[in-house]
């Protein structure tokens, strides 16, 4: 049996974060990466851009091809892991091999969540025109059959669904988005902001059927909950994702809204760490546990896990929801929790809503060019006491000038 000091299951952002974290404390020992996918790490959010033709296949890698050799990683592709044996500190691979680990990082990510529907095939792989939209395989499959005459129906007006809509609207005859919610991006935006986005997308020829669900999938049509029947050539099921917790659950690890970890990213199983979409995180802005399936979060968690695995004690306690997304020239920033005193402003160029509670910025939504939005993010992240800054300026135009002279000096005249 081969034994490795570091074994990572998964090969996406959290895994890469793990590698970089490990290398902050250990430049020697080899890292074994096991991935069920057949290819090198790519950036999952890029699939919509690839489908749209805005990025080339060879530019989709998340890290340079040399990354793994430079970091002394052994990557085994297309090898699913069957089982974790926490007592023995071993894992069983699908091909029967057993591998020992000293530190294990579970970065298995998430899988699409597909609600039960009549007519839904048992296995989507066996169909040719019904897809989820989270992997490159999904995108490849869609592109194979997408033609300018395609009628596309997308179930789900969340981030994934709308990115899919954006990718396909100019390459198809029609795109119709169906969602049970009464607005688009229901988990990210509120009514007003949601409406701006919807109108923008509608102006770009995306159609919406809201407060409606698909009750049955037929061969060429879908049947909606309001009884209407609409035709499709391609059906995309983008209702949401769910964390991939099976390995840890089966090994006896604690699971909540994802794999439960401490603030060092260690699961309830000793020497088994977890990071990324498969985990549950504490949203610092609402003090609640959430499954924050967003890329920056995955990387940061992976990095913290890796550092701890290599003996560099580090904590991750600054998680909160954070999204930057653009749809056909319209940019949307959102972050944190929408509670507290609201400061809202709207102009033809920009819509903005800030949430301040107990003199701390809790969350915001910005639609517009979003420049310098990171200053808001930082105020949330650092829980900055807003009484020391120029609030009026903060609300109208975030900039370093909002801070007092000493803080400005710290920020601009000192090493970071």
């Amino acid at each position, binding site marked *: 049996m081969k034994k490795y000091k570091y074994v990572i299951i998964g090969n996406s952002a959290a895994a890469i974060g793990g590698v970089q974290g490990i290398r902050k404390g250990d430049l020697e020992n080899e890292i074994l990466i096991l991935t069920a996918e057949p290819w090198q790490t790519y950036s999952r959010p890029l699939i919509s851009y690839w489908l749209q033709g805005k990025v080339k296949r060879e530019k989709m890698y998340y890290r340079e091809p040399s990354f793994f050799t430079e970091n002394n990683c052994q990557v085994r592709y297309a090898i699913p892991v069957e089982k974790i044996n926490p007592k023995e500190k071993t894992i069983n691979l699908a091909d029967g091999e057993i591998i020992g680990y000293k530190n294990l990082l579970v970065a298995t990510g998430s899988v699409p969540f597909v609600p039960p529907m009549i007519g839904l095939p048992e296995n989507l792989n066996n169909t040719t025109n019904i897809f989820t939209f989270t992997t490159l395989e999904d995108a490849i499959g869609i592109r194979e059959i997408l033609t300018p005459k395609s009628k596309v129906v997308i179930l789900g007006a969340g981030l994934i669904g709308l990115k899919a809509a954006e990718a396909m609207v100019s390459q198809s005859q029609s795109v119709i988005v169906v969602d049970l919610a009464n607005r688009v991006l229901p988990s990210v935006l509120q009514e007003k902001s949601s409406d701006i986005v919807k109108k923008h997308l509608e102006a770009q020829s995306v159609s919406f059927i809201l407060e409606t669900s698909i009750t049955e999938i037929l061969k060429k049509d879908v049947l909606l909950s309001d009884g209407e029947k609409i035709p499709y050539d391609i059906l995309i099921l983008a209702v949401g994702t769910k964390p991939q917790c099976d390995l840890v659950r089966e090994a006896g690890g604690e699971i909540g809204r994802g794999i439960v970890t401490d603030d060092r990213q260690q699961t309830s199983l000793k020497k088994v760490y977890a990071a990324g979409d498969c985990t549950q995180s504490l949203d610092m802005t609402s003090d609640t546990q959430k499954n924050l399936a967003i890329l*920056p979060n995955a990387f940061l968690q992976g990095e913290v896990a890796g550092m701890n695995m290599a003996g560099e004690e580090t904590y991750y306690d600054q998680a909160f929801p954070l999204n930057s997304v653009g749809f056909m020239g319209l940019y949307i920033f959102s972050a944190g929790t929408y509670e507290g005193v609201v400061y809202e402003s709207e102009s033809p160029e920009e819509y903005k809503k800030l949430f301040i509670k107990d003199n701390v910025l809790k969350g915001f939504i910005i639609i517009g060019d979003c420049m310098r939005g*990171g200053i808001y993010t930082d105020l949330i992240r650092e829980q900055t006491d807003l009484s020391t800054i120029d609030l009026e300026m903060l609300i109208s135009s975030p900039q*370093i000038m909002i801070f007092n*002279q000493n803080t400005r000096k710290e920020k601009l005249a000192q090493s970071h």
Partner: protein
Amino acid sequence: MKRVYVNEEWCLGCHLCEIQCAFANSGETDMVKAFNNSEKKPISRITVEDGADDIHFAVSCRHCDTPWCVKGCITGALTVNDNGVVQIDETRCVGCRTCILMCPYGCLTVGHNKTLLKCELCVENAGGEPSCVQRCPNNAIVFEDRDGVL
């Protein structure tokens, strides 16, 4: 490592650093051409903030030791080179602006092609010193090693 630092005490708010930065990264050899000959004026990667009481200072990428932008980058287009310079590979940027959302200094912007535009310390331009530093008329922008200096 050497970084761009600003001394607001000496910043006059002339905004020439913006002009010099935009020019240096425009690819043109003549400033007039860069600004007056093209449809789109070149964009600066450094921005001067003007406040009340004649306070001015320029803000550009701090090249932080903990670069939130790099960690948040969804494509891997943002990297840190061996000298600690945070660089952007334009060909891999898809313009998602996550980096802008992550940056605590508000010092990132986007170019005419919608991809990220940021200060790279003129690594590919002036050589030696960043253009904003070289041309600042009052030494308000300096290129120094202040690591460990408070």
